[in-house]
């Protein structure tokens, strides 16, 4: 990931970047990089996908504010992206089949 018109690199967003290398004003030099920030660490409760109960109705994935319910090319949902799921529980509420459990993080 790098900027086309200059030498901005991914390292300039990393946690160990120095003040001399960091981008001016916090400018992020390219698009679609929220994936770099692992917000899953913020989670206090974890949704657990109960595959046997899931009917693949897909009501859960559009309500996820963090795009953490991946849908594959066959149109089926897969397991949670725990690197980015913040544990808000909206998917748990919306599931009509109680196919998502909601448990405390350890």
């Amino acid at each position: 990931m790098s900027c086309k018109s200059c030498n901005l690199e991914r390292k300039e967003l990393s946690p160990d970047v120095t003040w001399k290398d960091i981008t001016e004003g916090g400018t992020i030099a390219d698009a679609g990089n929220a994936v770099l920030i692992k917000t899953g660490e913020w989670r206090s409760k974890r949704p657990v996908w109960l595959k046997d109960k899931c009917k693949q109705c897909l009501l859960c994935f559009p309500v996820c504010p963090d795009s953490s319910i991946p849908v594959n090319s066959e149109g089926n949902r897969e397991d949670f992206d725990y690197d980015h799921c913040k544990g808000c529980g909206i998917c748990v509420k919306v599931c009509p089949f109680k196919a998502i459990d909601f448990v405390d993080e350890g």
Partner: protein
Amino acid sequence: MAIRERMSGNEAVAFAMKQINPDVVAAFPITPSTEIPQYFSTYVSNGEVDTEFIAVESEHSAMSACIGAQAAGGRAMTATSANGLALMWECLYIAACSRLPIVMAVVNRTMSGPLNIHNDHSDSMGARDSGWIQLYSENNQEAYDNMLMAHRIAEHPSVMLPVMVCQDGFITSHAVENIELVEDDKVKAFVGEYNPVHYLLNRDNPISMGPLDHFTHTFEHKRQQAQAMMNAKNVILEVAREFEKLTGRKYGFFEEYRTEDAETVIVVLNSTAGTVKYVVDQMRKEGKKVGLIKPRVYRPFPVDEIASALSRFKAIAVMDKADSFNAAGGPLFTDVTSAMYAKSVFGPKVINYIYGLGGRDVRTDDIELVFNNLLKIVETGEVGSVYNYLGVRE
């Protein structure tokens, strides 16, 4: 040949803005700076500029619009005074930390309350730590010249910080004086085009500006911003040298007036420096060794240069047209004295006068009183009161 004219400070600044021809001017009227957007909107209506003029609903919106325009890749300008500047408060910090080289004319007026439209420096002094470069102007000529230099300083790749150009409300903004203007084509060549490296409307290189920063990165950004302010010192002098080649008018961090053999000096900003020059001339005729130091650049504060210049004198009065309400002196006084202490300049006696608040007239006999007190300090070695008020009814 330069153009001889006569103009008020407001018109001079508006005229500079016309010659600069920025992409966007967003402004809300407030006395005594109202005339600047007023003149400028006339230039817009007459087709004399290509600028998009945004008549916003508040100063908060004015600065927000400037931030948006500058972030998009344009050159944005505005003007304000007093409570208008205060209403821009949070946006000032965002403009500076986002490294957006906006240029703003500040026509100094006292901060309410009590409600008062007249001149002191409490507005811009309140913004002294917002991360903006601050240039002060003694008269219409200096306000005009500072405006022409402002973009060159602000937009320098090693700086990228916003600049406010300050002049005294009414005293400078509304008084018509002679002025020497630079020709349009020369201004255009001097100011140049604004070509930012990163900007939001560059579709070949999409960026995000102003993201959440947190404790993981904010300190690094602040440190980088501080460096930009340090870098600005050299840039300000470089631009001044180039401006001198263009106009013959010389600018530095501060002006020294008849200081060669002076024993006592007054340090003062903006229009009062003109009054002090007159008094210096009068007292020099009586053989009194008095002089003036007039800071032009207050942010960045020229610590080394001020301390070194002041080390030659025996007694110094720093005059503040704003009170810090810290029970220990005004902002210019605390900056000057801390510069001296940091540079081990312990020789001169230094006192502070808070003066002219809310537009209280500052007369030549007020200035004489200050010099006479300084001369007495030199004679007796006794400082007496350090923190003083000048011209208030006791």
